[in-house]
């Protein structure tokens, strides 16, 4: 783990990279890292996230500026700009049931090729996917997802990179921390090693490559 300046962390992300970004309607998104992606004018990004928040907030800032070529998300209903870019063909949007999306990411981080889920059987979500019957029940095979970078936000980090989260800002963050080649964590507060009790560490330090302070 390395503590770095936000500009240096983001400079490692090339155009065209696939990013998993934490947050749920912008709550728990790494706003400072997103602002730096905007400042460095990255383009052709693929974003994997629960949603695209709303214009001017969280991932919405990347959408506003046309920096995203493809989005894999479960809900875009509160971001009319995402819908506009999807409809006019400027951006590809793959809509995935929320429970399936988080499990595909979890599988990607946990060394699994995918998951079997009943969600989506008999709906448009099943189109083009393999159906499997086990013990009399039907499941879809949903492939694992991985990314080049995971961009997450934590409430507390220590100087080793151990992370803890608060309230509903946890959401996708600890799951994406496992599923990318490089993990960049932004933390609202960085505290001395030992201050976060072992039982309260939800993302162990060894998963974090770069730590950025939100201060």
């Amino acid at each position: 783990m390395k503590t770095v300046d936000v500009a240096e962390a983001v400079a490692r992300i090339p155009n065209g990279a696939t990013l998993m970004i934490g947050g749920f309607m912008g709550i728990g998104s790494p706003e400072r890292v997103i602002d730096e992606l905007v400042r460095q004018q990255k383009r052709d990004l693929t974003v994997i996230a629960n949603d695209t928040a709303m214009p001017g907030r969280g991932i919405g800032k990347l959408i506003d500026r046309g920096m995203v070529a493809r989005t894999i998300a479960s809900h875009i209903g509160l971001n009319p700009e995402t819908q506009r870019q999807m409809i006019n063909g400027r951006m590809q949007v793959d809509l995935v049931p929320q429970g399936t999306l988080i499990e595909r990411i979890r599988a990607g981080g946990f060394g699994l090729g995918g998951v079997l889920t009943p969600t989506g059987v008999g709906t448009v979500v099943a189109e083009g996917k393999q159906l499997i019957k086990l013990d009399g029940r039907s499941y879809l095979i949903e492939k694992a997802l991985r990314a080049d970078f995971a961009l997450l936000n934590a409430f507390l980090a220590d100087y080793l990179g151990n992370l803890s989260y608060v309230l509903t800002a946890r959401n996708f963050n600890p799951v994406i921390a496992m599923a990318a080649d490089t993990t960049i964590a932004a933390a609202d507060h960085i505290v001395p090693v030992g201050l976060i009790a072992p039982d309260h560490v939800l993302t162990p330090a060894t998963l974090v490559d770069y730590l950025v302070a939100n201060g």
Partner: protein
Amino acid sequence: MDAQTIIARRIARELRGGMLVNLGIGIPTLVANYISRDVQIFFQSENGLIGTGPIPEQGMAHPLLTDAGGRPVTALPGASTFDSAMSFGLIRGGHVDVTVLGGLQVDSRGLLANWMIPGKMVPGMGGAMDLVTGAKRVIIAMQHTAKGKAKLVKQCTLPLTSSRPIDLLVTELAVIAFPDGRATLRETAPGVTVEQVMSASEAKLALADTVAQMQL
């Protein structure tokens, strides 16, 4: 009493102390307003919270504590938080006792369409497909008609949410269950006749042994 209030009050009567309940946005959210104060129900927000409480007083909103629509909420004493994998494990794994969701169409077999209108509204399914597939009991809160058109149809023309039928449909006119895959009228709202419900529905309705009056 307006349509939304009738629906929310009737559904509130389906909930029991100790249940884990997930309410969707719209009319379903209103159900929480009609729960008796001495009954403890655990409300889940799928963004990672059990023990969701009312909207905070002015100035008391915590920026990192919201419901699944991103609106500020409170966490009641005894609340717990978790990540999205756990949250959907609770949902898909059958640990949620009841989910209450909105609907665009429900058909005669109890199949639900509630997440998109092709070419018009493509917000994404969010958690709806997992909830309908995995919750122990699925209750749909829906106005009986929209612009004069029946929403209780023979067969859904909009994309389905799940191949699992719902358990109960509550509208401002009626309560309808789906035993053995057949839409069955169980209750009518005060002042509403069986014929009125029939004529506002495209689906053919079977009648329960006794069609009761909806208790509100």
